[in-house]
């Protein structure tokens, strides 16, 4: 039995191609049952997201045939000519296929390395294949292993420790100023998409007290409703400034909306800790001089993006450590399969020995003189099988231990030589 994989991802195929080859949730069960023909492929599983399609299967015989069947199925199912997809798909078998699925589950192959969504998508695909009944012993072991490798990568490397989006970096910075966001008041100046996103991240971290201000009050109301916050008139937001701890500014204004002099005046009456200003607008909406005020901190979009870039670099470094883990795990798993998969060889060895014994019996039949039919049947059905079992037992034990370390077929080959056939 062999694990084979055919797939395409954002790295190998443009989005139009991925769209055409994707499997809709509704058609997945149908696709899985058509894929597994119990001839070339015994088990199958399909991961289909907007960034990738992975088809994993266990091939009973030749892995090349299994791969061809996967590729052909991908075309047939979507009514496409094989030539169209040939340059966009990758084909893996054995340890390479295992490594690939481990890398995908651990988010090493993702567009944003270390993102957590892919693990959930892999889990979903696994669950759907189990429901469709196309997952057997081999794939269930592979997928269980893939999920635990992903967990290991996550806990043993810092691959997903640092955020890589502007709004989550804003939260990370806020948590280096404030202990927790639970009691903090947040003022959103401008109710654009970016400030809403940043606010959502802060709310997820526990912030609950949000005030929104916007030139058009309707938009402010809509955003405030989303977060259970309140609104304040755009003309008078300086009045609430002394009471807030975090100010997020993102308006389309061409010039400063928050100026240093007014802010200084507003903060004078403030009798508590620091204020964090986050300016995610381009051009900037907060006067850079605000950064110089006592107990106030200002970060603009460039600052946040430089952190994002540094964190992405950090993830790349961690990804190299993860590759080492995955490489070891993939080899460990292939050895595990080999050990698990000596069944066919055992049958083969016994067949070889049985045939040998039978042909020797026939060759020497005349020399054995007269035998009744019962006696002949006893030799054929009792003596020979019993001898074969006795003789093959140490061989099978050897096969089992040898399979742990190396290639099974090589061991079988050696056995063939030992018992001098072919």
């Amino acid at each position, binding site marked *: 039995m062999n694990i084979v994989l055919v797939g395409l991802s954002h790295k190998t195929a443009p989005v139009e191609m991925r769209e055409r080859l994707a499997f809709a949730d509704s058609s997945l069960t149908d696709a899985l049952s058509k894929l597994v023909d119990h001839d070339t492929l015994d088990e199958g599983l399909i991961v289909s997201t907007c960034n990738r399609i992975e088809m994993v299967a266990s091939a009973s015989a030749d892995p090349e045939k299994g791969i061809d069947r996967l590729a052909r199925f991908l075309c047939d199912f979507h009514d496409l000519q094989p030539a169209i997809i040939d340059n966009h798909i990758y084909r893996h078998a054995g340890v390479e296929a295992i490594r690939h699925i481990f890398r995908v589950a651990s988010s090493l192959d993702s567009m944003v390395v270390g993102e957590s969504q892919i693990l959930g998508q892999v889990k979903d695909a696994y669950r759907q294949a189990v429901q469709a009944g196309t997952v057997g012993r081999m794939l269930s072991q592979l997928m269980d292993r893939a999920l635990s490798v992903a967990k290991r990568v996550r806990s043993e490397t810092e691959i997903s420790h640092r955020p890589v989006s502007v709004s989550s970096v804003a939260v990370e910075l806020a948590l280096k100023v*404030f202990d927790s966001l639970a009691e903090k008041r947040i003022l959103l100046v401008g109710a654009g998409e970016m400030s809403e996103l940043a606010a959502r991240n802060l709310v997820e971290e526990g912030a609950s007290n949000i005030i929104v201000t916007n030139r058009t009050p309707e938009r402010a109301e809509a955003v405030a409703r989303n977060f259970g916050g309140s609104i304040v008139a755009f003309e008078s937001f300086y009045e609430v400034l002394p009471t807030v701890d975090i100010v997020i500014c993102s308006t389309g204004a061409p010039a400063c909306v928050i100026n240093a002099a007014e802010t200084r005046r507003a903060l004078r009456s403030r009798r*508590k800790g*620091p204020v964090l200003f986050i300016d995610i607008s381009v051009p900037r909406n907060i006067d850079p001089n605000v950064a110089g005020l006592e*107990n106030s901190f200002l970060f603009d979009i460039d600052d946040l993006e430089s952190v994002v870039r540094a964190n992405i670099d950090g993830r790349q470094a961690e990804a190299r450590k993860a590759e080492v883990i995955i490489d070891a795990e993939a080899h460990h798993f292939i050895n595990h399969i080999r050990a698990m998969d000596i069944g066919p060889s055992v049958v083969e060895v016994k067949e070889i020995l049985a045939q040998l014994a039978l042909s020797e019996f026939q060759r020497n039949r005349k020399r054995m003189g007269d035998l009744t039919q019962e006696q002949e049947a006893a030799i054929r059905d009792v003596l020979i099988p019993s001898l074969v079992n006795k003789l093959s037992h140490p061989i099978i034990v050897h096969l089992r231990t040898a399979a742990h370390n190396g290639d099974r077929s090589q061991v079988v080959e050696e056995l063939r030589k030992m018992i001098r056939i072919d």
Partner: protein
Amino acid sequence: MDYLWFVILSGYALCVAESIFSLTSKQPTLRRWMIFPLALAFATHTAWLVDRGISLDRCPIAGTEEMFAFLSWALVVSYLIAWKWSHALALKAFIFPIVLVIATIAAVAPQSDASPAIKGPLQSFLFPIHAGLILLAYSAFFIAFGAGLMYLIQERELRLKRFGTFFYRLPSLDTCDSISFKSMAVGFIMLTLGIAAGMGWQRIRDGHYWHGDPMEIFSIITWFIYLALIQSRRSSGWAGRTAALASIVGFMIVIFSLVGVRFLGTLHPFS
């Protein structure tokens, strides 16, 4: 030098090395093993104090050696409390160098018997209370100093927008500020009680509350500085940079009370 001090000092030295390494390196791998040298050093340190107390049949906080031994021990205890409460592991890198220095002074100080002032009929239960409370207060002020230093560094990283290893290892400004404030408040209460016990002890001894001794003057200055700090923090709800700077000034004065005052001539027997 007592051989036990080798165990104590090398344990603390390991802690200093590891904590500074953890603060600056990306992979603090040694961290979980540091519990062993720390526990061994601290247990030995405790045993040393207990043994000294039993063999002399009094509280072991008289004379330079004992006083510094007790102060460094109290500082480790204060660190453990602050760490347990705030989970700010980075504090270790700021406290253990001080622990190491104070413990080294204790180790190399000449072993002196208690000064005549606290011997015989003059000995009173008030003396160990006085000295113990003041040393505990100092250790709390050292913690405030460490947290104040962390505050200033973290604030600097934020202002300069340098988001390096330091930035990620140090706690939030909020945490630094609250460790600093809480330890100052606790230290201030102990200092107040310690000064009161000292005055009471002197009253019993020679009928005077006050001798104008440099140590007394410095203690009162320290007391006023911390009073002012705590008061301003209470009214503003946040001490920030000013308090962090003041905690450093407070620390300098405490150090001077401990080391510098002896050159001015003092009645205080330990100096």
